[in-house]
Structures are given as C-alpha cells and as structure tokens.
C-alpha cells in the first residue's frame, strides 16, 4: 500500500516540477497579496475630511472647532462661508463631514442652556460614518465637561451643582492600541491558504479525468483511498509551507505579535488543511471538467469567506446565517489563528474549534473517498 501511495506522490511532484510557472505562482503571489491586503484591510477611521461653518464667530465656537482641527481623527479641509458652500463640499465629496455652529451658540451656553452642534454626514460608507459620529460625540462630550467645570468654577462651586459622573475606564486586551492590522493580517493568512489549497486540490482529479489519464490510473492496482492520499499529501505539504511562509511575513513585516504556542497553531493549521483538502477533493469528485470545478470553487469559497467572520462579526448576522457559519472551517481557523497570535491562548481554550475542524475535515474526506470509489467502478 505504502509503495503505491509513494508512486502517486512521485508522479504528482514530477508534474509540479515540470510546470515551470507553478513554482513562481505558488510562492510569490501569496506573499505579495498578504503585504498589499494587510495594508488595505482596515476599518480604522483617521483624517475624516470635514468642512466647517461657523456662524457664531465667538470665542466658544472657535474653541470647539479648534478641538476638531487638533484631532488626528479629523482633517478640516475647508472653512465655508455660508450653508450653501458647506452643502456643496459634501455633495461633491470634498468633505465627508460638515460641522455647523449656528449663530447664538455662545449666548445659549452663557445662559446655561444646551447649545447644539449640527453635524452633516455623508453616510455612503455607513461604517466610517458611524465611527466618525462617535468621535464627534466624544469631542462634544469633552467640551461639555470642560465648559461645565469652567462655568461652575466661575460661579464658585456649590457642591450640589456638580454633575453626576460615571467614568468608563476601557481597557483593551490583546491589542492595546486598537491596531486593526493585527486583527486582519492573521485573517488574510488563513483566507489566502484556504483559497489556494482548495483551488489546487479541486483541479487535481478533474484534470486527470478531463485529459483522460484517470482511466489509466484506474487500471493500475491503486485503490481509491491510496489515490486520494497520494493526491492530497503534496497539497497538504504545500499548504503547510504556505501557512508558515505567510505567518513569517505577518510576524516580521507587519510585526503582529505571536503570543501563543507555535505547536498549537501548527495543529490548528493541519486540521484546517484537512478540511480544505476534503473540500477540494469533494469538488474534484463531483465535477467532470476543470471549468466546472473552477465555477464550483467560486461558488463555495465566497460564502466560506463571507460567513467566516473575517470582516463582518458573526454575532451581528441574522440567526439562520449564524447557524450556517457553524459548518465553515474558516470560521474556526480564524479563531485559532487570532487566538494563538494575539491572545496567546492554547488547547484549553481552543479545543472546540479544533474538534469542529477535525469533524468537518473527516466528513468531507470520507465523503469524497466514497464518491470516488463509486465513480471509479
């Protein structure tokens, strides 16, 4: 049995070796992609372009606007002279945010009443808009507090007039500076691996079928299980090298911290590759031509990517979609890879994910062996 598997292995490696562009295709693109996508994937919001309209021209309004100019979150690109100009700046996309201080702003504040800062937001990118509004709220709240403190100091503080205050002291674990790159880069590593391994594996058997060499293999004494093993082992090794390679780039280039145990990551990666190989094999046994396999890959890989929690939090999805995520191996590997990189957790915390990936991988592989046996008879 071992000899027959080795024979298939040798054939696969020879085929790969003779494909001149393959070596380049398999090594360079993942690294380049990781670097580019690692920089591209971010939900951070800095330098929101803002247009300012100050109709009050008071010390208070200037003070308030200075707080926006000084913040790194905002980039005041224009000072408008009238409402029409502010409106146009947003319409033309020059600014995503408009800050309007109406006339009478400071008078209201002097009287101890509540004054309003009007904000216009381009909501096209709802996420950025939401976060930008959050920062506006923070700046306004700080201003309020400072103004109240100043006012009560001027009045000579009567104890009762101080506002009740509950401060929230946030502490950000695992990612103290809220660097979104640390979140996305491990995710890109996992997704790239999934895409490459599934695509390569799924072409493996279909190609033999399409070119007509599958019949030749069928007449040899090789059994379906041996055939599948011989076909998958090279891709398993390749996937493993890929995970190691891009992880190294994540560590050395992006300086994402690695706080866990490398062995746990390796275990997780092996189980994840098992699912990826199983999936590729299944596609391979279900399709007759490479065109079909390619189309099926797109059809399967996209949902896996969307449902994995790579960018969109699973807890925000509708319930039926949340159930669907349970059969997505990428979902589990993302937890493992982010867990080992950032949280430094081990098998004690990650065992549910490891078990789930084992189950998915075994089921997929078993099913594809059954399918292949049937189609070989």
């Amino acid at each position, binding site marked *: 049995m071992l000899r027959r598997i080795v024979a298939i292995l040798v054939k696969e490696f020879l085929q790969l070796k003779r*494909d001149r562009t393959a070596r380049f295709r398999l090594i360079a693109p993942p690294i380049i*992609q990781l670097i*580019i996508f690692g920089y*591209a994937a*971010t*939900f*951070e919001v800095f*330098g929101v372009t803002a247009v300012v309209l100050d109709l009050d021209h008071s010390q208070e309004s200037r003070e308030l606007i200075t707080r926006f100019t000084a913040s790194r979150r905002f980039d005041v690109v224009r000072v408008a002279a009238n409402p029409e100009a502010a409106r146009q700046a947003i319409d033309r996309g020059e600014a995503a945010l408009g800050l309007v201080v109406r006339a009478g702003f400071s008078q209201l504040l002097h009287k101890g009443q*509540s*004054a309003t800062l009007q*904000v216009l*937001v381009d*909501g*096209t*990118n*709802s996420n*950025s*808009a*939401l976060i930008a509004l959050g920062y506006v*709220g*923070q700046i306004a709240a700080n201003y*309020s*507090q400072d*103004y*109240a403190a100043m006012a*009560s100091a001027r009045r000579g503080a009567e104890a009762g007039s*101080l*506002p*009740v*205050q*509950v*401060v*929230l*002291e*946030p*502490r*950000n*674990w695992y*990612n*103290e500076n809220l660097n*979104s790159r*640390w979140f996305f880069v491990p995710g890109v590593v996992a997704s790239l691996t999934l*895409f490459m391994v599934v*695509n*390569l594996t799924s072409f493996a058997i279909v190609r033999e079928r399409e070119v007509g060499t599958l019949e030749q293999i069928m007449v040899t004494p090789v059994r379906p299980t041996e055939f599948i093993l011989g076909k998958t082992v090279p891709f398993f090794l390749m996937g493993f090298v890929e995970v190691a390679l891009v992880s190294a780039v994540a560590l050395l280039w992006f300086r994402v911290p690695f706080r866990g145990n490398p062995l746990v990551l390796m275990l997780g990666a092996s189980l994840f590759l098992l699912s990826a190989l199983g999936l590729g094999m299944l596609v391979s046994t279900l399709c007759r031509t490479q065109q*079909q396999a*390619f*189309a099926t890959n*797109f*059809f399967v890989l996209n949902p896996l990517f*969307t*449902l994995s929690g790579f*960018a969109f*939090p699973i*807890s*925000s999805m*509708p319930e039926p*979609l949340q159930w669907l995520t349970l059969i997505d191996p990428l979902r589990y590997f993302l937890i493992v890879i982010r867990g080992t990189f950032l*949280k430094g957790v081990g098998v004690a*915390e990650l065992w549910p994910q490891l078990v789930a990936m084992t189950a998915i991988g075994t089921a997929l592989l078993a099913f594809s062996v059954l399918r292949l046996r049937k189609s070989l008879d």
Partner: protein
Amino acid sequence: MNANRIVAIARKEFLQVWRDPRSLAIALLMPLMQMFLLGYGASLDLKHIPLCVFDQEGSQHSQALLQRFRASHYFRVVQSVNSYVALGHAIDAGDCRLGVVVPYRFSRELSALGKSSVQAIADATDSNTATLAVAYAQAVVNAFASDVEVRWAGPGRALSSAQSLAVASRVWFNEDLETRNFIIPGLVAMIMALVGALLTSLTLSREWERGTMELLISTPVTGAELMAGKLLPYFTIGLADAAVCVLLAVYWFDVPFRGQLLTLFVTTLLFLMVVLGIGYAISAWIRSQVGASQVALLLTMLPTAMLSGFAFPIDQMPRLIQVITYAVYSRYYVSILKAVFLKGSDLAQMALPIACLLVYAAFIAAVASRLFRKSVD
C-alpha cells in the same frame, strides 16, 4: 473582421456553455447567492455584543446599572461572574467580547462625590468591534449617570450643565446608516468580476489543454474574430447577471436607486468589457487550466474584494497602496455604482471614472490580442 466567422465562433462557444448546464447555473445563481449572503450577513452595525458582567458590589446602584446593559439591544449579557479570573477566562475563550466590572466602592463614591468609575475590559482582537462596543458602553453608563442625577435633583431643580453641548447629526445619502446600502452597490461589481473571471479565464486554456486549439488555428479565423466570438455569449450572461443584481438590490433589499438606468447600463457594459477581457487575456497567457484559474483568482477576485473600496475605504489605506488601487479596475466601477445608487450622479459627473474604465478596456483588448498568437508553439 468577418461577421460570419465571429457568429460561427460565438455559436460554438454558446453551445459549449449550453451543454455544461452546471457552470451556466452557477454563473446565473452566483448573484443570487452572493446578494443574499452579503445583503444579510455583511453588517458592521453591532447588535447583541456578548457581554460578561462582574458586579463586585452587588448594591442597588450597581444592579440598576447592569440592568441598563441588559436592556440595551447593543449588548447581550451571556455570563455573570464573580472573579477576575473567571472574567479573564470568558474573554480568553471568546465567550464574550466585553467585560464590565462594577467596583466595590461604586455606590459609596457615587453618593459621596457624585462621581465614580466602572471598568470595561474589551477583547480588542477585533479593534473595530472593540471601539464601537466601548462607545456603546459609554453611552449606557452616561444614560445611567444622568438618570441618577435626575432622581437626586428631584423635580423642579435645574440640572447641572453637564450636557451643555448637544450634537444633532443629519446623515446624507444613506440616511439610516445601513451597512447594506453601502455594501450592496459595491457587491454588484464584486459579482460581475467573479462571474467574468470564472466564465472566460479558462476559455482558451481549455482549448490548448484538450488539443482543440490546433483545429481552431487551422481555420481562417483571426485573433480578433476569435476574441469577439468567444466573448459574445459571456457578455450576454454577464448582462443577465447584472440585471438580476440590480433588481434584487432595489426591489428586495430596498437599496435606494437615485440615478438613471442609462448611466448604470453604459458603465456596466464598459466594466463587463474590462472584466471579460482580463479573463480572456489570462486564458491566452497561461495554457494550463490550473494555472489560469490560480492567476484569475489572484488578479480578479481578491483585488476586487480588498482593493476596490467595496468594503474597505480606500482613503484609509497607506499612500502606496492607494496608488496600487488605481490599477484595480473595479475601483472605478465601485465608485460609479455607489454614486449612481446613493447619490444619483449622472454620466457627466462621473466622466473621470468612466474615462478610466474606457482606457482600461482598450488597454486590455490590446494586451489580450498580443498575448494570443496563432501558432502552436
């Protein structure tokens, strides 16, 4: 160019597509699936953030505060623990994203000083979620504080000026800040890029691999005719897909459509030309189907997902990556789609991105015809 020969090639290609119903079905089902998955699943609006509470004090005040967290639809209290160790474990295992700790001295400080603090421990692995979660928690805590103040002040007494500055925001273009309205227009581009690549990137390599290219070469058909004939059927499929996407977006997902249909039609035609042209060029360049599929994945789907501004805002990327995005053709189409859907821009307002697409289409056609040579070696 001979119309007869183009029609002959188109007929042959069409028959080939027709006889592979699975690939055709996938090409037509792809928009449906992607629309539903991302339309429902892609939400960055946080709801039901898993929360873990640790009430060290157990007083009326602390319970009232935690009750507010329970009542908020932003949070879902999944665990109530009584030690830091347990809290740490819950966050480590990923059971909750945020931990709120009410300290021993909470009500004592609150009644004595009118001021106290609460700790929020966030799992900042996902920095975006962490930022929003902390902001929502802050809002809950603020509401609690002003509630306490109202109760203490009693009816009739003037409130302190803690909230002297209010923010009134008005959102344009996407009034409810729905992630869906921001994702779906870009998704149309994503789907077209996918379908285009999966349909055309194997079309020539298939002929090479199966040995039918020699037959094609021996016919009088020229390179340009071959390209026109081969792409014609896929053009039709692409347009059908675009129609499905737009109908779903407008009638099912209620994404506002404020522009003109003509604008959308013209730009979609252009984009299809680019996408199909790229697939064809890949197919002419790489003669093995596995290779062509790998390259198509790398050049079409992944850049469209990451670099087009479809989900990740381009203006937040580092300068160098922003420069690279100019080479990603989907970037132009995504910006056009968002403008046509949400802002109602017309052809004249989008002259620049349209011109870029035109240049791109011409460039790709030139490259594709150079890459395809009518010779066997």
